[in-house]
């Protein structure tokens, strides 16, 4: 484990996915795909139907029932305000999955577009985008997001802006490299010799051929985004109380950690479950979509 920790470049957000991947490395692609798909499917269904499944209102206070341990009435116990932890964990799934999906997708969109442009147009576009990538990578992502949210204010939109600004570079580098390789292939030359315009060649002919690696990375990257978002909201920069959110729930549970372990444990387990599911899904997809690698 210490080796995995030592060679990580940026913060805790990147360590867990790597450790998880190390542990899962020996399982075959198809079983990873099935296991990851089932876990994420399960989490997604729970998230979508959280309002049906949840036995209690996640934000309704009930001071008579505060800090109850897990029981038949409260599967995961209650927090200091008597709110049902199980219901809060379920509702959080909806919010966290949504932020992870959209946040990662915006990174994918912006990064792929910039990488495609840099690789395909080359010259000035490539130099400019290349420098921009260097600049963004030079800053530690989470610090930039914290600074940004402190300036712009705490809101979901600003959170998305922060995630996108710091997270697009990996996609840009991936897609740029693939585009450089594809640009020299005969089908691009055929397209040019048919008189197709460059936007048509870039988007219709090159893009579908270079987007797969970025798409695979999108799923794996969602693990990082979930951890990033929960870390940020643990620091109070994510969705604000009383909105249930895994990171924020753990932060709120901190003073009661010794007396009421269940308040922090269950949201933590939910993060781990989602992270493992996404990591499995990403690895499985990578194996399934790029069979030429092995």
């Amino acid at each position, binding site marked *: 484990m210490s080796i995995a920790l030592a060679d990580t470049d940026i913060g805790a957000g990147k360590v867990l996915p790597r450790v998880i991947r190390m542990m899962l490395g020996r399982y075959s692609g198809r079983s990873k795909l099935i296991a990851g798909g089932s876990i994420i499917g399960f989490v997604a269904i729970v998230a979508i139907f959280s309002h049906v499944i949840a036995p209690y209102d996640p934000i309704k206070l009930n001071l008579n029932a505060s800090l109850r341990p897990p029981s038949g009435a409260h599967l995961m116990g209650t927090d200091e305000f008597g709110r049902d932890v199980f219901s809060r964990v379920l509702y959080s799934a909806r919010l966290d999955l949504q932020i992870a999906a959209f946040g990662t997708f915006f990174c994918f969109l912006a990064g792929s577009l910039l990488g495609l442009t840099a690789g395909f147009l080359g010259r000035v576009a490539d130099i400019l985008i290349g420098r921009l990538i260097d600049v963004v990578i030079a800053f530690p992502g989470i610090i930039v997001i914290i600074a940004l949210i402190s300036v712009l204010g705490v809101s979901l939109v600003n959170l998305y802006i922060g995630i996108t600004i710091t997270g697009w570079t990996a996609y840009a580098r991936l897609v740029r490299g693939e585009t450089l390789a594809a640009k020299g292939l005969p089908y691009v030359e*055929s397209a040019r010799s048919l008189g197709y315009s460059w936007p048509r060649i870039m988007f219709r002919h090159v893009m579908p051929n270079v987007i797969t690696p970025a798409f695979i990375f999108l799923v794996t990257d969602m693990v990082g985004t979930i951890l990033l978002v929960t870390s940020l909201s643990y620091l109070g920069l994510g969705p604000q109380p009383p909105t249930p959110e895994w990171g924020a729930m753990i932060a709120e549970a901190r003073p009661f950690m010794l007396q009421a372990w269940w308040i922090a444990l269950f949201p933590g387990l939910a993060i781990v479950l989602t992270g493992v599911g996404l990591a499995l899904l990403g690895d499985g997809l990578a194996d399934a979509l790029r069979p030429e690698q092995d």
Partner: protein
Amino acid sequence: MSLLEIEDLVVEFTLSRRRYRVLDGVSLQLESGGTLGIVGESGSGKSMLLRTIMHVLPNRAAVTSGRISYAGQNLARPGREVLARIRGREIGMILQDPMTALNPVLSVEQQIVEAIGATRGTKGSAARGRAMELLRMVEIADPQRIMRAYPFQLSGGLAQRVSIAIAISAEPRILLADEPTTALDVTVQAQILRLLSDLRKRLHMALVLVSHDMAVVAQACERVAVMYAGSFVERGATTDIFEAPRHPYTVGLLASIPTIDAGVKAAGLQAIPGTPPTFGDLPAGCRFEPRCPLATDECRQDRVPLIAAAVDHDVACLHHAIVAERGVHFGANDRPAPSQPAVGTTQ
């Protein structure tokens, strides 16, 4: 006036501040409906010539002087709208490896319909009908099925037929074929060559066929130009060149074609000793001089221009009269030659 005229074309590559002349003073004329074969070794600049005409040169290469005119329009430095009018519509091109020349993620139908839309403006069911017609023109027996296929589901021959269908979708007046049969099986090669000849007559297209294979060119072209290290060394009617070659290089190329008769005799199949010069280090005089058994001091002085050696037969050799009279014998004269491979794009 000829349909396509190229005069003194010079194309240079710039790599780490050095310039490499990959085409040096190339001139040719192509009549409407005519056929021209360009032969030469890998890296001699054949493919580069086609790319220059089509204006799809790599980033680092550029036309530095000379003239290309197509039906009176300047193609050496074409404007955007001239290119858009000519590429695909007036001049079509097919490439060596049909499997990579088709986009792997688009179906045959999508690719043909797109070409028809882009070059002719036809859309929807009309374009689909035209696509079927084109596939029938390239003698695909089951166009319905092939339309739905993706390139990886096609054989090499089928894929080349689809590429040809795409290239002729706008019935261009010139078809440029860059080693169209090299990647194919021998039996399929013959079919594709015959198909190209038939289509050319039917659509009254001019054909420029680039190949390293003299036999392929002999089958399909009335006229031949032999390229060596970026320039033509001999050009003329195919029959003249095959029966009475006047450049030692052409003689060598012809001698290196295996034939059933020659195979029996030890001296029948000859190879030209040495390798072509690299573009960074070209000989000052005749470029074939280091490999030529007839080379004299004169050959090392200046570039040797193409001159008319006979009616409609040009050759760039000071000793063409000796070649015509006595022939050339390679092998005995095994001179050392630069061993690095030549700069080029053909694999």
